[in-house]
């Protein structure tokens, strides 16, 4: 979930959200056993440990789908699709779409679960290296925040640098991974807390971060900047990269410690990147696990750039989605033309499966307890997003809310109700509004986390279990 930008607040009275959030689970028909939860948790931690970037998440999803009999499809192809066809599309490597063609043509609408596989972290500056010329001291890499992070979460914590570079000489895509387990070293944020700007309040989002990268200068007479050379040589030796190559790169600075089970009962997963890879993983598992032919075409969307506003060619605002939809419309024999596409959108229904905040046990006061999600009580439905008077958010139609509740109840999946904290405490947004703008009937439903946007976000394995089952029930719903 994206942290809301400061927006002008309209004083609109909040519509009555469904109450009775926490313990409304009743008697869920589908409660996983210990062994099933352990296996699911292991698989999910495996995904989180691998999917450290959007590109790596896309690769994981494609691989998982192909292993389940899906076909790598392209928006450039002209094939006809038959009901039951299983397709996986990717927009370059930054967003990925898992599709099962339904018995009804796409012109009659689709069932979609939309998530985002990007997550807050730091990202290196285009030319990040700063090293004292005399070789004394420490070489640093400069980075800035991607999405809403707190500076102290990157202060003296093992960090890795992952991402990809387009090499200047040959344009080759070079996948970079430095500082993860087998390397035997990591990077670290430096001490920031002597700076008064960071002391008392969460910092502004766009500050520069300094990442410790090397402190033993290369030897050799005539070397002009021996400490800088230490860092550059590591990139050159392993990847054949020169400093100039770094200008065309997406190099993320991410926590290097892998996912862990949290709690003596091992019910929680603690890891960086679960907003929104928790629901991305659930949507992926939901879609690739669909059996037979769903009534409507089912789509799991793992989009990009949600944390910075869903912008760019891979964000949910990108018209790549129109291109994909037009291809599916054409492939299922739908009528051509803009009107047909818009009509198909208007007949479509979607869940925006982004990560809501569950009640933090040491800061419960930022939530309104009767309308707040708890970990382990099932995915949470939040009818509206935004801040203040729902500004900047999406506010679902009650018909859609009731429909989703029916589908989850029929499948025996508990569904909580939540909102984004107490009124006026803050807020956030999701991709829901960008699908709503296209005419989708949409509501936000997501498995929740505690410590959102931190290096150790907490999710509950049971919520993940139910999210997979619930999203699949929605994707195959005939309603």
């Amino acid at each position, binding site marked *: 979930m994206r942290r809301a930008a400061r927006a002008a607040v309209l004083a609109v009275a909040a519509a009555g959200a469904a109450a009775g959030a926490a313990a409304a689970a009743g008697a869920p028909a589908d409660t996983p056993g210990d062994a099933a939860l352990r296996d699911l948790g292991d698989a999910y931690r495996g995904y989180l440990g691998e999917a450290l970037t959007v590109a790596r998440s896309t690769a994981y999803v494609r691989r998982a789908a192909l292993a389940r009999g899906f076909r790598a499809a392209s928006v450039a192809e002209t094939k006809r699709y038959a009901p039951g066809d299983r397709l996986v599309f990717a927009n370059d490597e930054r967003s990925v779409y898992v599709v099962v063609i339904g018995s009804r043509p796409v012109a009659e609408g689709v069932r979609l679960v939309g998530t985002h596989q990007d997550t807050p972290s730091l990202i290196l500056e285009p030319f990040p290296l700063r090293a004292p010329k005399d070789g004394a001291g420490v070489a640093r890499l400069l980075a800035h925040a991607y999405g809403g992070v707190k500076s102290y979460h990157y202060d003296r914590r093992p960090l890795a640098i992952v991402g990809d570079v387009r090499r200047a000489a040959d344009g080759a895509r070079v996948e970079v991974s430095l500082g993860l387990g087998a390397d035997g070293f990591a990077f670290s944020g430096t001490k920031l807390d002597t700076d008064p700007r960071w002391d008392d309040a969460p910092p502004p989002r766009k500050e520069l971060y300094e990442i410790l990268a090397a402190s033993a200068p290369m030897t050799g007479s005539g070397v002009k900047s021996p400490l800088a050379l230490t860092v550059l040589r590591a990139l050159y030796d392993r990847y054949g990269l020169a400093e100039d190559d770094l200008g065309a790169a997406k190099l993320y600075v991410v926590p290097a410690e892998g996912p862990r089970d949290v709690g003596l009962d091992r019910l929680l997963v603690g890891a960086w990147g679960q907003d929104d890879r928790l629901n991305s993983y659930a949507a992926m598992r939901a879609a690739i696990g669909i059996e037979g032919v769903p009534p409507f075409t089912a789509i799991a969307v793992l989009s990009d750039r949600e944390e910075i506003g869903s912008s760019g060619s891979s964000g949910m605002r990108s018209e790549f989605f129109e291109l994909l939809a037009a291809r599916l419309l054409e492939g299922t024999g739908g009528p051509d033309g803009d009107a047909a596409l818009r009509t198909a959108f208007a007949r479509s229904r979607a869940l925006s499966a982004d990560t809501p905040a569950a009640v933090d046990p040491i800061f419960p006061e930022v939530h309104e307890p009767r309308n707040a999600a708890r970990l382990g009580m099932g995915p949470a439905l939040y009818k509206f997003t935004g801040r203040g008077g729902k500004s900047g958010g999406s506010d679902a139609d009650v018909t859609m809310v009731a429909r989703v509740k029916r589908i989850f109840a029929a499948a025996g999946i508990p569904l909580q109700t939540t909102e984004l904290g107490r009124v006026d405490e803050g807020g956030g947004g999701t991709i829901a509004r960008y699908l709503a703008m296209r005419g989708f009937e949409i509501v936000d439903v997501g498995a929740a986390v505690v410590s*959102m946007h931190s290096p150790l976000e907490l999710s509950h394995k049971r919520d993940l279990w139910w999210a997979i089952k619930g999203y699949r029930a929605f994707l195959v719903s005939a309603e």
Partner: protein
Amino acid sequence: MPAATGEKLSEPRHGGTCGRALGAILALVALGAPAAAGCGPRRAPVPAAGAAGAAGAGGAAGGGGAPASAAAAAAPEAKLEEKIARKPTEAGWAATGADRRAAIAAFAEDYRHFIAGAKTTRRAVAALTTMVRASGALPLPEKGARPAPGSRWWLAAHGKNLALLVVGDAPPSAGLDVVAAPLDAPRLDLKAEPGFRKEGFVMLETHLRGALDLKLWLSTPLSLFAWVDRPGKAPLDVAIGESPDDPVLVVPDLLPHLARKAQAKVIIDAERMDAVAGMAADVTEDGVKDGPALAKLLAPWGIAEEDLAVGEITLVPATAPTYVGVDRALLAAYGQSHAAQAYAALRAALETKRPPRSVLVLVLDGAAMGADGDGDTGEFFVRRAVSAALAAFTADGAPPELDVRRALAASHALCAQSVGGAVNGGLVLNPRFDDADPEMVRELLRALEAGKVPYQFPETGPEGAYSSSSRRISTTGMKALDVGLPIADRGAPLEVLSVLDLHTAYRAFAAFFARVPEK
């Protein structure tokens, strides 16, 4: 004299260092010019207008590069400067050859394995004791031992204090060369009645031990160490979270979306530092139920709820030590601002073959709270170890009181604790911590210069959180001086140390032990 040529890990870089400028200013002061230059970034000292004679003649004392007018070589002022101004000597990696780089890497790797298993005082002392015993050192007897030069003896107390004695050409009664290194890193101890349920979680109440930088402990994986004495049985000694397959505990943090008001003034209040131990509510076919209480969560790990009130139960960072930087020249680890010096001093003492004076390394519990916490900490164990070192070599185990006091008065102690300084700048000397005696400082400087060991004086004095261990130890009558490694991260879950500085400390202690004192 080495200047502080490096930089602090902790602060943004600011051009030149005060240390460099200081030498120049001192030179100017010596020549009668006012110290007008200050410590501003990249600012060469400028003689004040009207400065008397010699200083006005060329500003040749410029620390950042001589002005063109100083090119007139061999001016008398330049000769004077050459004679009396502080000269930077080589420190850092530039002064480190390939052989030594290999030795540093090997030393760091040994140390990394040690520090990984030294997350509590008990575990650190156990690991150090194992190292000492493996070297062939014998338990110090109460009496009747022969003080053969080069013989090694050890003494432990309460599982939290350790002394290593290496007998020199001069016996212990002639005074000892002491390195006193405190252990006891900041951590979260559990309260006696820690368990409670809140918002669906089973939580553990904690209490700070030491000065923690609290916000850095949020959203970081924590291991639970439990040590419980069990009469008639072996003590319970459990660590949960140290194996990668273990679960960890965590103090959660508030999401930034909702933090603007709640964390506007204080990010985290100490009383809120409660850790998630598990889930309190369970969903079954019969609906939502209260799940297992703390006792049930602990039982599979062999811990009973009543153990919590009587055991040492503590939460420390689960993160394993890791090198930092592509050159593996820094090391990030929990607890090393204390343990690094204990390790370096013991290694130096164990590798000392036959020191001129007898050597005593003391690993002491309790520093994180000012050495006032336990019955057997701080100077108490210092006195006891010196007394035992004398008693062991008497026939009746009862050395005269005056002999012990004379030995104490003839001893020199380096009190090792990290308090910042320039990374790769050499051993940090803090004579202002407790206003050390200049003869003690000079004695150490002679030893360091003889061993070509770089050293530095910190640019800032002690800050509030630090307490001087020399202040305590010098009350025994020893001459004491605070020294340490440049680590500025005290209170953080991970502290960053240069492997060069670690090795420098080891060489410094070795040089201290090897020196032949002036008569």
